[in-house]
Every structure is written in C-alpha cells, then in structure tokens.
C-alpha cells in the first residue's frame, strides 16, 4: 500500500498528492511516469512524476479530474493509501546541455514540464518557460517554475493572469525574435502539443512532446498505447512517452483518446457518489 502523505488542491479540478513510494522515488527521472490504481476495483491510470525525492521517498503527482477514475483518486485523503503504484515507467527525457531551450507547459502539462525544466536547468541550459491555462484559477506552480527558469512567461486564454492568449502565441513570438533556440519541449493537451509542433516545425526547431494515450499495463504488454511516429507504430509506454513532435500522427492520437467516451459517460452516471 502506498500512503498519501500530502494533498493540495491547486484549483477546482486539479489536485496534487505526495505519495510514499521509496523504491520508485529512488529511481525516478525526469520524463517518466507512474501507474496508479486507487482501489481494488479501480482502473490503472498513468500520471507523470511531477517531482520526486530520493531522501524522503516521496513522489509528487498532479492530476486533473476529467473522468471517474481521476475524480475517485481526488476524493482520497491524507493518511489513506492507494492500492497500487507502479513505476518509474517510460524512457527518461534526454537531458543534455543544449544551450538555450524552451519548455512549454499547457494546463495540466505544467506538471510534467516542471521536472524536465528542472533537470535541463541543472544540466546547464538556459531555460525559458512558457506556461498557460484557460484561466488564472487553473494555473498552478508558477512559483516553482519561476525558481528553475531563467525566464518565465505566462498566458491565460481569458487574460485573467499573465498575457492573454495561448502558450503557443508566446512560443511563436519568441521564435520570431530569437533564432538560437536549440530545442523545445511542449507538453499539454494534444491540441496544444500539435499546435506547438506546427509552429516549431516552421522554424526548424527540434521539438519533444509527451504523448498521453490510453494505457493499461504501461510495460509494453498490451499495445493499447499505440501512437504513430514517422508512420511507424510505437508503444508510448516503453518507446516514449516523449517523441519528436514533428513526426507524430496527431489525428490518430486524438481519435484514440476518444475510444472509451461512451463508457466514461456510463460510469459517471452509474457510479455517482455523495
């Protein structure tokens, strides 16, 4: 059993939890994820390792309540334990000193971009971070991001915080002004990663995205997490989750995420609590 040590409500739908998992914490690297199962009847859901601490043995996860399983996890409290917590899974990010890099985190994508930006900063890069959300209420960890970034830019769709607009607008401006950007990491909803990749492609800047397909085992056993990259089928859990954003088949990624839409409605209707 893996105990919840801390719970923090970052916004109406976004929650942070610190979970005791010393073995996972000892091995976790930026870019990797875990799979959590809240209870005996629960789904296995993949979540990025937002932070980890070898000394305390704690893993931080941040998740957005989008369907039944994340809502159920979000209802758990400090002191309770999740039944299963497996990781670290996926390939770590390739951290090197590239020079000047941009980290774009959209919405819940701020959680996965943080450890990567931190690792890139520690590797000596100049880190320019762009984070954003629909509205101020949904934006979190701007302080943490500021600490590890050389420059931080913030966007909200409605202008309630930072600049008004999308993170991709800021990204585009940036690339127009500064040509020396070595690499871009863009993580967030598929639409955002797709837009970011389209922009960087025009400027020929290598771009890494983190795919978030539906998963089951997370070890390369089931093939549920198939994505197409450069027309080749890859399993995101073991070949990724990071891929070259310029080569990803985005239409396919979007379609596969909708596979269980109807079932999601069924479970939300049938298993309502309160």
């Amino acid at each position, binding site marked *: 059993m893996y105990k919840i040590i801390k719970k923090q409500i970052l916004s109406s739908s976004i929650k942070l939890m610190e979970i005791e998992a010393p073995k996972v914490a000892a091995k976790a690297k930026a870019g990797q994820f875990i799979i959590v199962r809240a209870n005996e009847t629960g789904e296995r859901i993949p979540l990025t390792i937002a932070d980890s601490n070898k000394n305390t043995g704690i893993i931080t996860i941040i998740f957005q309540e989008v369907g039944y399983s994340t809502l159920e996890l979000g209802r758990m409290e400090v002191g309770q334990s999740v039944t*299963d917590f*497996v990781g670290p899974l996926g390939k770590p990010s390739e951290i090197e000193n590239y020079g000047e890099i941009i980290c774009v985190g959209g919405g819940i994508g701020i959680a996965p971009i943080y450890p990567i930006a931190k690792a890139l900063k520690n590797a000596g890069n100049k880190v320019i971070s762009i984070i954003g959300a629909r509205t101020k209420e949904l934006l979190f960890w701007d302080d943490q991001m500021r600490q590890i970034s050389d420059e931080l830019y913030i966007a909200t769709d409605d202008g309630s915080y930072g600049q008004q607009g999308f993170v991709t607008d800021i990204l585009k401006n940036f690339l127009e002004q500064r040509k020396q950007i070595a690499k871009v990491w863009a993580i967030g909803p598929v639409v955002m990663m797709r837009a970011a990749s389209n922009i960087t492609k025009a400027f020929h800047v290598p771009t890494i995205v983190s795919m978030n397909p539906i998963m*089951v085992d997370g070890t390369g056993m*089931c093939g*549920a997490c198939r994505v197409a990259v450069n027309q080749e089928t890859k399993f995101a859990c073991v070949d990724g989750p990071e891929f070259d954003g310029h080569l990803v088949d985005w239409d396919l990624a979007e379609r596969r995420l909708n596979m269980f839409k109807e079932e999601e409605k069924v*479970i939300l209707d049938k298993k309502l609590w309160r």
Partner: protein
Amino acid sequence: MPVQKATERVNNFGEVALGYDEKMAVEEANRCIQCKKPTCIKGCPVGVKIPEFIQLIKEKKVPEAVSKIKEKNSFPAICGRVCPQENQCEKYCVLAKKKAPVAIGRLERFAADYMLDNREESYEVPSDTGYKVAIVGAGPAGLTCAADLAKLGHKVTIFEALHVPGGVLMYGIPEFRLPKNIVKTEIENLKKLGVEIELNYVVGMLDTVDELLEQGYNAVFIGTGAGLPYFMNIPGENLNGVYSANEFLTRTNLMKAYDFPNNSTPIKVGEKVAVIGAGNVAMDAARTALRLGAKESYIVYRRSQEEIPARHEELEHAVEEGVQLKLLISPTEIHGDKNGWVKGMTCINYELGEPDASGRRKPIAIKGSEHYFSIDTVVMAIGQGPNPLVLKTTPGLELNKYGNIVANENGQTSKQGVFAGGDIVTGAATVILAMGAGRKAAKAIDEYLKTISNN
C-alpha cells in the same frame, strides 16, 4: 464431463466445464488398465506418475492421489484445466488406439479440486539455507521455480510487474476456463512456503537483474513470458476498435471489464467481432467477445481447420457457443469510418501449398481474391514475442534472433547465476512446459548455490 449449456454459458463468465464428482471420477479411473509399461507418462512434459495417481483415485484415496501428482506437478488444478492433454498424456494412452483414452486431465483436475475444496494443506517450511534467489515474473515458470526452491530451504522473492501474480493465468486465460480463485489459492499456498511476492515491481525499470545480484541475491531466475503483442503491420491497424489479444483479455480478465461499471476499466465490443488467428489466445478472445455482448464472433485464419493450433476442446466449445470460423482468409487492410472506428476489412483468400518448416502446409495467397468483410471490432491474436524490458537492461545476456533468452536445458543462461525458463526462452508455448522449465531451473539453481560460498 458435465459442462454448462452453451446457450447459457455465453451469457456468463462462470466456468464452462464443471468437473467430475467422485462417482464419475472413480468410474473413469476404473477404465485405466494400469499398464505395466505406461505410455501415458512419456507424453507428460513433467512425467507425472499417471497410473499411480489414477490407482489412488480408484481406491478413493484422493489426498494421496494429489500428493502423488504433486511430486511432479505443483499446480494440478491449473494443469488439469489448461494442458493440451490430447497432444500429451492422453495421446499416448493405450486405450486411445481403440476407443477414448482415459481422461487423465479431468482426473487430475478432480483430485486437485477435491483438495482445494475439502482440505487445508499443511506445509512444512524447511530450515533456511541462507541463500537468496530472486525470481522475475510470477507466471507459471516463475511460480514453479519459486515453489521448488522454497521447498529446498532457499529464501525466494518473486518480483512481478503487474498488481497480481499469476502471469497469463490471471491476465490472459479467461475466468470461464480457469477460475481466478484457483490460481489465487495456489499462490496463497506458495506463500505458506515462505515465498515473498513483490507486486508492482517492474524489473529493469526499478532494479535491474545486475542490481538484484548486487543486493545479495545469489541467483536470479527470469520468467517474464511472451508479453509483447504482435501486429500485422497492415493499414488501419491503429483504428479505434482494433485491440491486441493481450489488451482485450487483460481488460476483461485482470481488470474485470466484464463487470463494468462495478469495476472501472471499460472495454468496448461491437456487434461483429473478427479475431485474427486460431490459437488458444484467439479462441479465448472470440469466446470472450460473445460474453461481452457481440452478436457475431469470427475466427479469421489463413489455414484450414486441420491446422488450427488451439486445443480441441476449446475449439469445440467455441463453435458450440456460436463462434464462426472463417478459414483460408486473412485481412490485408482494415477500414474505418469518418470518426476513426473500424467498419470493415479487406480479406484475401488463401490455399494450402506444400508443408513448410513447421510441418504445416504453407498458406499461399490467391491473387485477385480480395473481398470486403464488414466488421466493427478486430482482435489481433497472431502471437506474442519476448518483452524487452528486462532483456535490454541485462548486459551479457545472450538472446537468439527472435529476441528470446538463450538458455541450456537446465535454464542456465550466458550469464553466471542467471537462469531463465518458460515462454521467455521457448517463445509462446504452454503452461506445463513453462512449469517444467521452472522446475528444471530450480534444480540447477540449487546445484549452483552449492558451488558458491555461503555468506
């Protein structure tokens, strides 16, 4: 053997074959003529003393019969259900020449079930030898190896990637063929021997094999199975509604999607399901599809009925339940609707040529025979390969051209102190062969431990 009626069982996940009662078992046991030179044993990969245990059933000494079986096979309740007996012991039974062979598998199952139902088995935990062995993977190979090593007094820890132990027995083979409670009971018995099982532990991502050795394990057994689904690499394979058999069966069996939404993992099955392939895995998927509500379920296979590799009993049960066979055809492309969901596939006809290396007649595509097959779910059950997570992180481990571990008949790999067995060595095979490999490796590991200094 009594079975659930086909029309009823397609609506539930309860076990299909109901098993003998004592009267039936004794009656069947009485058919065995107790050959002086029993041929049946030769057909058994682990050499169960078949006539001896059957004799004990005749005498209604069921606990003794089980002990006799367990001298060679640690998990008879499982093997009695899933072994391909018609190709093993029963094939070689002398009675098979004239009439039906003795139903050895069913007798094995009867005896094992009787014990599970009626008696707590007692376990003697032997004194500790001080040696520690790590087992990677809790499938039949790993579990058997663990059981044998524990009985010899070694300290055994099994590391399993999933949240339950059992391997394919839990995530692949459906409840209606192998009730999960049986596997669970067998594993509980194993724990009584002192074996520890660490779940949610992906070797290669957490510790590597080398790190386990550094941490003080004196030997490591790798039994990670054939857990990499193959696809055909045809257009349309990533459409919504195309599953690997592993995903389809894992969602259903391990995650209990058949009981959605009581269990939170969903599965979506259309009205017309095509399962590509005709092995046990394919039969399980096709029958599962019907139980999940599909109106039509097809086995699509590019050879003829004669070459079908699934167990006879499973094929028979599948057909009784309404699974339809589409033989001598294979898909070349899967088509989707505008939302990206499967709506049909193009198939091509095959004819059979001369026997190939496998001894089976080689399927040859007939040019110009393409035709459309309307379908809304596809399950790929064309085989599995070795999952590379452990292999890639274990330097010095020799692999063959298929990516399987090279090991000698005792399971010794190219790396000192590292043994392997089961599907990871042989490629996808059978439960009993995996168990046999686990057992041989345990013996070799025991011998190996005696050669190293005990610290």
